[in-house]
């Protein structure tokens, strides 16, 4: 069966140093076609356990491959296909790649700030999973992000448990910078350039200046400070329309009661 040969080929070329990503992509496309013909891509009912394990492994390699080629939508597709294997075929021998992939999925949700989905996904994991370093990493990141301990998130960059995490961590840093920037806008009146650079984890001043321009901050180069424009004193407006609507609602309800 050519499927087996291709599978071995894929495994070999993915494990090679450095992996031949272009070849993997070609093989994956062919293998997926093969899986569909064998009814293994979206398995239903009772199937041979060994076949399922192979199918699962192909999809797992596909998931890793998508991240290496920085194709996030493709990772999402592989992940949703894998979920069938992880949840509905829990009787299969557990895969050693399951937690890394789930962890990657969690980080991906974090980078998009989909916190509700993050918690839903986390809740469906068994309690033991949280002890795995692959899951613990995103869980910690989320906790620090929510608290505001951004320095810890920055520090955890290097501690990524798998090489694939690196890709997401970079985009996570972008999210964090924007978070910090919005905090600074409200919390400070002005900030020395040097300190702003440290707070935002910039190493050079030019990077900071570009970033400041994007956010529309006033930079005073001679004094070396950034001034944040106050977002105007909050106007104490009486929300007329809302009050009127509420009063009308009460009147109607009272009418019904009486």
């Amino acid at each position, binding site marked *: 069966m050519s499927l087996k040969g291709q599978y071995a080929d894929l495994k070999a070329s993915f494990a090679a140093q450095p992996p031949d990503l272009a070849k993997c992509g070609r093989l994956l496309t062919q293998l997926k076609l093969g899986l569909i013909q064998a009814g293994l891509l979206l398995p239903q009912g009772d199937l041979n356990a060994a076949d399922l394990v192979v199918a699962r492994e192909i999809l797992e390699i596909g998931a890793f491959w998508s991240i290496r080629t920085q194709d996030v939508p493709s990772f999402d597709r592989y992940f949703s296909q894998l979920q069938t294997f992880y949840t509905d075929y829990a009787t299969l021998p557990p895969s050693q790649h399951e937690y890394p992939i789930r962890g990657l999925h969690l980080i991906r949700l974090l980078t998009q700030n989909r916190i509700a989905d993050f918690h839903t996904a986390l809740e469906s994991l068994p309690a033991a999973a949280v002890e795995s370093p692959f899951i613990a990493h995103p869980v910690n990141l989320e906790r620090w992000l929510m608290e*505001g301990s951004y320095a810890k998130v920055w520090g955890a960059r290097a501690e990524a448990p798998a090489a694939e995490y690196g890709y997401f961590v970079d985009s996570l840093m972008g999210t964090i910078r924007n978070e910090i920037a919005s905090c600074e806008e*409200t919390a400070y009146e002005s900030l020395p350039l040097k300190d702003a650079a440290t707070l935002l984890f910039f190493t050079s001043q030019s990077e900071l200046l570009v970033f400041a321009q994007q956010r529309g901050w006033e930079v005073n180069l001679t004094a070396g400070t950034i001034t944040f424009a106050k977002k105007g004193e909050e106007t104490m407006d009486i929300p007329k329309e809302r009050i009127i609507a509420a009063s009308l609602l009460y009147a109607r309800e009272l009418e019904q*009661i009486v």
Partner: protein
Amino acid sequence: MPDIEMKPAKKDEKDKKDDKKSDKKDEKKEEPPKPPPTPVQEIKYNVVLIERGVATLEPRFTNRAMRTQTALRKRLDDVVLRNAIDEVFVKDTPTKQSLLSWLPEPPPPTEAMEVDSAAAAAPPAPKVPVPTAEPVPEVDMYFRLLMMHHFETSPSTYGKALDLAHQTVEKMQALNRRSMDPIAAKVWYALERAYELGSELADARPLFLAAQRTASLRHDDETQASLINRLLRSYIHDSLYDQADKLVSKTTFPASAGNPQFARYHYYLGRIKAVQLNYSAAHANLQQAIRRAPGATLAPGFYQAVHKLFVVVELLMGDIPDRGLFRHPVLGKALVAYFDIVKAVRTGSLSQFQTTLANHAPQFEADRTFTLIVRLRQNVIKTGIRRLSLSYSRISLRDICVKLHLDSEEDAEYIVGKAIRDGVIDGKIVHERGWMECGGLKGGYGPEVGEVFSRRIGYCLELHNQSVKAMRYPLNAHRKELAAAEGAREREKELAKEIQDGDHDDEEMGGEF
């Protein structure tokens, strides 16, 4: 005779204490038998109710029969069931045969005690009119339901319960009678329980899904409500919150469903919403669940479970639950661990929070609130910062770090910055000097007062509307009023006519003069 009667009477007293007190009272008002009815009598009484319900097309009677279920369930045994079947099914029909085939052969009359109680039950039997014809299929279903509950009490008969449940469901769907709906809803519950006891809950899901579709096509509200709850329960049991959420968004929970079903539904919704960080919606749902659930003493388990979640959600929203809640006789003991957490959050002490969390972790995991409680960590920090901002007008970041047990000054700066942005405190950081300056308090007379007020009014109005909906309107009661109104209209017409005639008279008279 009194000697024999005393025993069951005492036992009844005990049963009543931990079960549906009010239902029993209702029943007593209707038919005041001096000694509380024996199980066989009660079953027969329920059979009569069900038959009346079917005959008058009034689900109320059937529902009343169903309400005694919880109390009755604990007193069932093989002999009681056999006797009841014997008495209700007079003729030897296939239905009776199939019912009896599920029960073990009657033991030889060595068990004098059992026979005695059965004999004691026999004399007052004529009180209930003995049905002569074959009872309606609903009665058959009722007995099957009773048997299922009985089988589910001991692990040795779990398999039997499951078989019986499957057969019953098939039969029920083939019959497709609307008058059977209230019983059908309970049968589904029994089926789920049978699966759960066999710890194969996930296998029942396709069955439930199919049945749910059928029920919604047939507008079988009772069954639909019951099945939606069954499904939600099984999803949440396996932590499949995604699927549960999708189910909720794709179905509409029938508005005519009973309160117990609504209470469950709201509880599950609350749980899903809490996991998705939608705390205010979760809070509203849990409040509904508490309000709709039977009283604290009737269903203590549910009451405690809802309150556990309720306390956590309230904390996550940044509120502190009422202290009186933890002194409630039913809740006090169950909520001890939660009370400790509340104390830790209230004082804003991270270290106290961590130790409490570690101490009670097994209980939180058993309650499946652990992940929710872990999320409270940020709330603890926020409360701490808020307390500091209230008591100091200016405080150095170093001190904040020490007081809140944070790891570094750098962290403290970010955390305070985030708190300011999120609107937890009003103030600013002066970076050059390394301190936080806190702004004055808000007046407390802004538009937010109106918002709080309108939220409360909304709650009261909804409570009123729900209670109006919950009231029962007897059929045809409006006929009388209609007749009266008709009469009034008639009189009015006559009057108008007379006046008209009178006018004419006047005119005529006027013409004459």
